[in-house]
Every structure is written in structure tokens, then in C-alpha cells.
């Protein structure tokens, strides 16, 4: 995968090969990026819009990609930042109150379409959406995406220890949520 990515990056930076390489990049990463974004913003339409923004940013900035991290890490970092910025913008525009990001996400989830999970999946999703932002992000990446802590640490630019603590707190809160239902 890493060798393939290196080849892809080289092609993306080469004038004649750029467009084909970009198509390949989209094909390779669109599903993983989409689900990552979707879990953060919940709405399909918002996730679709944000994923397009992510790929446009990649297209525009590929020449500045210094390859300090892997392509996968870089893409996920852009996607995470775009998604969190999107929620921050909504917060600034007073679409929901300062503490109401979770309420907004739960409402979006309950009123939205494109969900075919069972009752338990729905309950878990509501519990996850009620977590603080960082814990929600860490729980999604660990539980649903089964990402390694080391990878997460690179994407979120934080320590493995902090991530483990966040995940632990998230699990405890979800347990408490289920017990309190």
C-alpha cells in the first residue's frame, strides 16, 4: 500500500500523469474517507459535500505535500479538519447553541434518511453522538474504523496515551448512557 501510494504521489506531481493518478486516488480512498466524514457530520449530504472539498484541496495542494506522513494520514487529516471546521462554522452561525453540537447531530441523525441499522445500532449511535467532540472522534476511529492508536495519533497530532484515555472515557460514558436508558 505504501509503495503504491508513493507511486501515486509521484504521478500526481507529474504533469502528464496527474489526472489519471487523481482518478485512481479518488477510487482508492473515497469509501474510507466518506465513512470517516459521515460519522463526524452524520448527514449524507454534508458528508458528500465535504468529501468533494477534501479531494479538491488534495488536487490543489498535492505539490505542497512534503511526504512527512503517509498519503493515508494526510488525507484523513484533511478530512477530519474539514469536518470539524464544518461543525464549528455551524456553531458560529448559531444554527445550534454553544453546547448543542451533540443535540444537533442527534436531531440530524433521527430526522435523516440513509440509515438502515437495527435498534441497538441506533441506540449506540445516539450514545456516541452525545459524547464530547474528541471522545466521539476517537471512539469512531477505534471502534468502527478499527484504526491503530499510532495511526490515530498521527492523524489527530496527539499522543497515544491521550487517545487511550479518550477512548476509555468514551466507553464509560456509552455504558452509562445504556444503563440510564
Amino acid at each position, binding site marked *: 500500500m505504501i509503495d503504491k501510494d508513493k507511486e501515486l504521489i509521484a504521478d500526481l506531481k507529474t504533469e502528464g500523469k496527474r489526472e489519471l493518478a487523481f*482518478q485512481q486516488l479518488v477510487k482508492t480512498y473515497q469509501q474510507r474517507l466518506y*465513512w470517516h466524514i*459521515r*460519522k463526524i457530520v452524520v448527514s*449524507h449530504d454534508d458528508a*458528500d459535500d465535504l468529501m*468533494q472539498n477534501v479531494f479538491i484541496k488534495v488536487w490543489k495542494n498535492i505539490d505542497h505535500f512534503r511526504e512527512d506522513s503517509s498519503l493515508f494520514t494526510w488525507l484523513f487529516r484533511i478530512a477530519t479538519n474539514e469536518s470539524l471546521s464544518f461543525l464549528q462554522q455551524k456553531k458560529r452561525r448559531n444554527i445550534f447553541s454553544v453546547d448543542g453540537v451533540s443535540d444537533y447531530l442527534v436531531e440530524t441523525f433521527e430526522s435523516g434518511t440513509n440509515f438502515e441499522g437495527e435498534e441497538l*445500532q441506533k441506540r449506540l449511535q445516539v450514545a456516541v453522538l452525545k459524547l464530547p467532540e474528541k471522545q466521539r472522534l476517537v471512539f469512531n476511529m477505534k471502534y468502527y474504523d478499527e484504526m491503530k492508536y499510532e495511526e490515530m495519533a498521527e492523524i489527530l497530532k496527539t499522543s497515544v496515551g491521550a487517545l487511550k484515555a479518550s477512548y476509555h472515557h468514551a466507553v464509560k460514558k456509552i*455504558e452509562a448512557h*445504556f444503563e440510564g436508558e
Partner: protein
Amino acid sequence: MSMKAKNEHIKNELGFPKMETGFTVPEGYFESFGDRLKVRMVVKEKVTSPTGILFYLKPALGIAAGLAIILTVYLHPFGNQRNALFSKDQQSQVLPADDQIDPLSNTYTSLVSDGQLISALTEMDEYDASKMSKDALADYLASNCSDSEILNANK
């Protein structure tokens, strides 16, 4: 860690086995995503790319418009009034008060040329009373002074 062991681990943590989110996407979404992205990139490119000479002239036109506004305000009657007020203000700052005026200072003597000043002094000499004849003095007093001034002169 095997899948079974992983599920067992999660089950121990949360009390239930590993689950998916349950989120779905519209049919054919990922198959058509690349094409839709391409369309959006083309549209975005058209919107942000330069559209003719006006695009390049835009900054210069903006500066020109700004300068025009500044000049209009400066040359407007209000601007002149402001200048007049300012110069008046300057005068009051430059000129001393009446009681501080030096009678010999150039402020007033400069209004009269040197030639005019000399001829005026010469004329004064001509009317020196001690050098005048009685008739000339009488003529001078008659033409320049009132009767009351003449009568009161010796009091």
C-alpha cells in the same frame, strides 16, 4: 488478534459485540462520485479562473476609483471651505493680538511702499506750523479742522 477475539474484547468493553454504524448511501453513490467531483472541479475552475481583461484590470480600477473619491472630496466646495477655515485659523495663530502689534513692524508698513512713505513725510514737513506763514496756517486750519477744534486748541 483474531476477529472472534476482537469481538469478545469489545463485548467485554461495551457489553455487546462489534457493530457497524447502520448508515447507508444512495444507490450507485460511490460509482458516480468521481464523475460528480470532476463536474464540480470544472465549475469551480470556471468560477475562479480569470475572465478577460477586466479581471486583470480589477485591482487597478479599484485603486483608481479610490483616488477619484479622495480627489472629489478634497476638491469639493466643502474642501475649499475647509481650506479657507484652515487659513483663517492659521492667520489667527500667526498674527499677534492688537495690543501686541509693533507699530514699526513690517506687518503694516509693508502695505505702503517706501516711495509713498517718503513723500508723506515730506508733505508733513511742508505743514510744519513754525515754518508756515499766517495766511497759509489759516488756510490749512480752515480746510482741515472744524471750528470747535480751533477754539478748543488753546485750552
